[in-house]
């Protein structure tokens, strides 16, 4: 009997997180049978996040801000309205806030309470952004977190961490790398990484994309 009860205990403990594929299929089947969801619409949602929504949208916005001072000023004042004014098919919702890295301030975005992330402009967050390690440490020892990304900042640079605790969504406008004078927006966008728009990275240097 001790063996049997041990076995039952192990099974109960593991069952909550095992067999996810079956659980997901069961929930989807029941919801679809009851008419709350349309499985074909779910296919389209998955496709959109796999193929259409991603950091290339944010990169385009940053590249424009680097080349157009008027656009940058408006972006920093009201990012949602300004991005919508581009008239592109990549719409963004309300409450987007763009913050700029400068010679003396580096910005980092985190969500300590869950995993709020600017999906409209960066797509779905990477696993590290949602991890307990990042969420716990970014607000307390951001330089140590940046070291995990091989990023070292000058000792006197101010580090500003933005904890996304409400429906405002933040994106970082990284510093424009030197040696990119005269580059087009398309060329510049290739320098803008996902991590640089979260603040755990810097924009690529020209030689990194050559």
């Amino acid at each position, binding site marked *: 009997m001790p063996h049997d009860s041990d076995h039952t205990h192990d099974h109960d403990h593991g069952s*909550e*997180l095992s067999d*996810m*594929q079956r*659980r*997901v*299929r*069961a*929930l989807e*089947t*029941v*919801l679809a*049978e009851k*008419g*709350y*969801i*349309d499985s*074909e*619409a*779910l296919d*389209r*949602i998955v496709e*959109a*996040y*796999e193929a259409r929504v991603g*950091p290339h949208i944010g990169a385009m916005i940053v590249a424009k801000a680097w080349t157009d001072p008027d656009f940058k000023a408006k972006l920093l004042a009201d990012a949602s309205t300004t991005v919508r004014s581009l008239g592109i098919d990549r719409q*963004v*919702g*309300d*409450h987007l*806030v763009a913050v700029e890295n400068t010679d003396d301030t580096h910005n980092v975005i985190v969500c*300590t*309470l*869950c*995993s709020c992330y600017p999906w409209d402009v960066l*797509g779905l967050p*990477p*696993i*590290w952004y949602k*991890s*307990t*390690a990042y*969420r716990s440490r970014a*607000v*307390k*020892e951001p330089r140590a*977190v940046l070291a*995990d*990304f091989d990023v070292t900042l000058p000792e006197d*640079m*101010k*580090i*500003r*961490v933005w*904890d996304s*605790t*409400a*429906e405002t969504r933040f994106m970082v406008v990284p510093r424009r790398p030197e040696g990119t004078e005269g580059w087009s927006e398309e060329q510049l966008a290739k320098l803008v990484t*996902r991590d640089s728009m979260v603040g*755990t990275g810097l924009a690529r240097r020209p030689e990194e994309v050559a």
Partner: protein
Amino acid sequence: MDGVHDLGGMDGFGKVKPEPEDKKPFSEPWEGRVLAMARALGSVGAWNIDVGRHGIERLPPHIYLAATYYQKWQLRNEKLAVETGLVTAEELAAGHANTPAKPLPGKVVRPDDIAGMLVRGSYGRPEQAPARFKVGDRVRARNIHPKSHTRLPRFTRGHVGTIERIQGCHVYPDSYVARGEEDPQWLYTVVFDGRDLWGPDSDPTLEVSIEAFEPYLEAV
């Protein structure tokens, strides 16, 4: 609630593991289904974003810490679908429906609706009263420990910061989860000095901000 989800400032979780820029968003196909179900259920009005978040926060602590992101979402989807009466536990176990559907306020998402529903909704609401604070005011994050949902992280409670931005009036998550009322409140960006939060040995170059609803703050 003072749950394990409120992670800011905790030690012991180890290094952050960077990922390639081009990594695909879903590691397994079921993860995409979980996300899509959550979005579709949101659109049809099964529950709002705050109730959804609180559903994840209410997972048992050992499950919260052991589960992956989409595992948490799946467990939350199941839990809220049962709690709100959309489905029964028996139906989930059987993998098939055997009770009538419950009417929901929104429209079921169809394939042609996707473009519109991918844009985030607005949480801004008309102001109910003038803003109590202005940019530059010094404020203290209240020392509150509600048992229900709140968005005031523990690491700021009791500490003094400065109002930096006024973000408008927004749906107040605490009231929505507790009573189903939007109860719009002013939302502020409040910035704290790292040393005020973490003590004299903290990084002197660090500033941390939160987005704080007016009821979380008191004048200093």
